[in-house]
């Protein structure tokens, strides 16, 4: 048994034990689905970042940057961090205020609609199952490459770990283990990056070496053979994808559902600021270091393996084990979040169970069913899976974004408008994605599934709302959302929250300085 496999096995056993310990303190459905709504800022931050950072960050994002798509990618990730603050202020705190157990329940209450609630649950379950599949594939590829153990055994071990963890401890366990995993992979990755940069002769020297090898890597347009043939098209892609992911970070079920567990609305807002900082730090450091790995391109087996190869070959073995176990933790933490949300939506929104005990029981059954389905697809891995994998982020944005905004900020939107907006957005976006992938078509950038899905959603929203009228229950539900709970009025808390949001403006300055000093200046010097 190699040391990497041993490290991963120990960590998986530790997560299961932790889940079992946490499950002992669980009393009711509120504990299982929304962690008792008592989570402080650091737990929400940990869960937000851990749910976001799956194996995709270390393999997918790092691989894109390594493969020549650095600048367009950098634009998308920096833009998307704004989704946290916008999402918390314009959506998340109202979601928290609704005291719903799930986001589909929020839609159901807000529009007094069972069909909208079920549609929202279906879109959430489909997109998160798909996302989970991609995480599973990432975990399998990582473990197989690092340990040499059979791919299917690797995904089975990971699946057993996150299924048991979620099954026994629910959202409460997910929240705590997410935060531990976030701390683990953040600290180990940052230490490893320092070691790697040291080996490359320092940051500026490393950028110079790689720029001399290939001047395109850090350029604004990136490698023109990667996706689109012109720099302008790459920029349009970056902005469209950036806006998609602004929406995902703002309203995505695996992100904004964290706010349902927050102790109060101040926690919602503050946690979004620190989550944005955390995501920026990881998304800047890891993919930028991946670009620097081009120095070793002859030895790296493929772009997705750039950082994994670095962790195995450029850092001391013990640190390498910690980093790779951290990457596994990132994958497991995302999977547990998806799984717990799927279980909640299944019991609470699809089956609509009222009884607390039954609800938890059916939530657990939902978790088991989805685990089996995901294992089945990951095991047989049919080629169509790659088509389905492309759906998640954009589809959830196109289905939910306009409806989420309208549910809080529009007095005119009706139940039919919300329902048809969500339905049209879901169908249009999925159709374009599937047609583009199955037919292997290179659609022009303005026919990107994001634009098509969003326009379809807005059309459905407007037409549906024009043809029907708002019920008294809908008016009351929106009015209720605008009433600030008395507990939120606390001058000291308000002052801290104000400063936290102001810190986000400061973060904008930090981004500018960071990019100029760490990317632009060393790149220009090297040219």
């Amino acid at each position, binding site marked *: 048994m190699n040391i990497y496999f041993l490290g991963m096995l120990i960590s998986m056993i530790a997560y299961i034990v932790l889940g079992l310990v946490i499950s002992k303190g669980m009393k009711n459905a509120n504990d299982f689905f929304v962690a008792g709504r008592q989570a402080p800022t650091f737990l929400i931050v940990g869960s937000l970042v851990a749910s976001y950072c799956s194996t995709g960050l270390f393999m997918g994002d790092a691989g894109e940057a390594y493969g020549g798509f650095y600048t367009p990618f*950098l634009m998308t990730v920096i833009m998307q961090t704004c989704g946290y603050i916008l999402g918390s202020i314009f959506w998340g705190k109202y979601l928290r205020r609704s005291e719903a157990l799930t986001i589909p329940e929020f839609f159901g209450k807000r529009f007094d609609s069972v069909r909208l609630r079920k549609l929202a649950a279906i879109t959430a379950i489909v997109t998160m199952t798909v996302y989970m599949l991609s995480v599973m594939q990432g975990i399998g590829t990582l473990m197989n490459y690092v340990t040499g153990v059979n791919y299917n055994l690797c995904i089975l071990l990971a699946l057993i770990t996150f299924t048991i963890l979620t099954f026994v401890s629910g959202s409460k366990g997910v929240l705590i283990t997410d935060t531990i995993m976030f701390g683990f992979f953040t600290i180990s990755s940052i230490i490893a990056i320092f070691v790697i940069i040291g080996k490359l002769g320092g940051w500026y020297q490393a950028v110079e070496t790689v720029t001399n090898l290939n001047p395109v890597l850090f350029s604004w347009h990136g490698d023109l053979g990667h996706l689109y043939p012109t720099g302008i098209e790459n920029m349009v892609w970056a902005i469209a994808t950036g806006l998609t992911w602004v929406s995902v970070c703002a309203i995505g079920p695996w992100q904004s559902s964290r706010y349902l567990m927050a102790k109060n609305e101040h926690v919602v807002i503050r946690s979004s600021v620190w989550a944005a900082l955390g995501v920026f730090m990881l998304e800047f450091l890891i993919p930028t270091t991946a670009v620097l790995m081009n120095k070793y391109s002859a030895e790296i087996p493929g772009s997705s393996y750039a950082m994994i190869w670095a962790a195995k070959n450029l850092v001391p073995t013990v640190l390498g084990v910690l980093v790779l176990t951290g990457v596994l933790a990132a994958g497991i933490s995302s999977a547990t979040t998806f799984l717990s949300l799927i279980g909640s939506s299944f019991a609470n929104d699809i089956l609509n169970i009222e009884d607390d005990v039954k609800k938890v029981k059916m939530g657990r059954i939902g978790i088991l069913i989805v685990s089996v389905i995901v294992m089945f697809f990951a095991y047989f891995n049919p080629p169509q899976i790659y088509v389905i994998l492309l759906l998640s982020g954009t589809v959830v944005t196109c289905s939910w974004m306009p409806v989420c905004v309208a549910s809080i900020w529009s007095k005119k939107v009706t139940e039919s408008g919300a329902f048809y907006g969500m339905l049209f957005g879901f169908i249009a976006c999925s159709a374009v994605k599937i047609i583009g992938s199955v037919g292997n078509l290179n659609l022009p950038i303005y026919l990107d599934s994001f634009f098509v899905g969003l326009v379809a959603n807005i059309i459905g929203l407007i037409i549906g709302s024009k043809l029907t009228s708002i019920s008294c229950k809908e008016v009351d539900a929106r009015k209720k959302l605008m009433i600030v709970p008395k507990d939120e009025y606390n001058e000291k808390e308000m002052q801290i929250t104000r400063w936290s949001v102001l810190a*986000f403006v400061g973060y*904008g300055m930090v981004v500018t300085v960071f990019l*100029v000093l760490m990317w632009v200046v060393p790149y220009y010097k090297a040219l």
Partner: protein
Amino acid sequence: MELAIALFLGFFVMLMGIISYRQICKEFKQMEEKQKK
């Protein structure tokens, strides 16, 4: 162009921060006024 992108991204983040700050100040002010009443 790289410098322009870096400045644009910094500006974008700051702008979103300012929009959020204005919104939160507005809401807190309303809360304070309601509390006084």
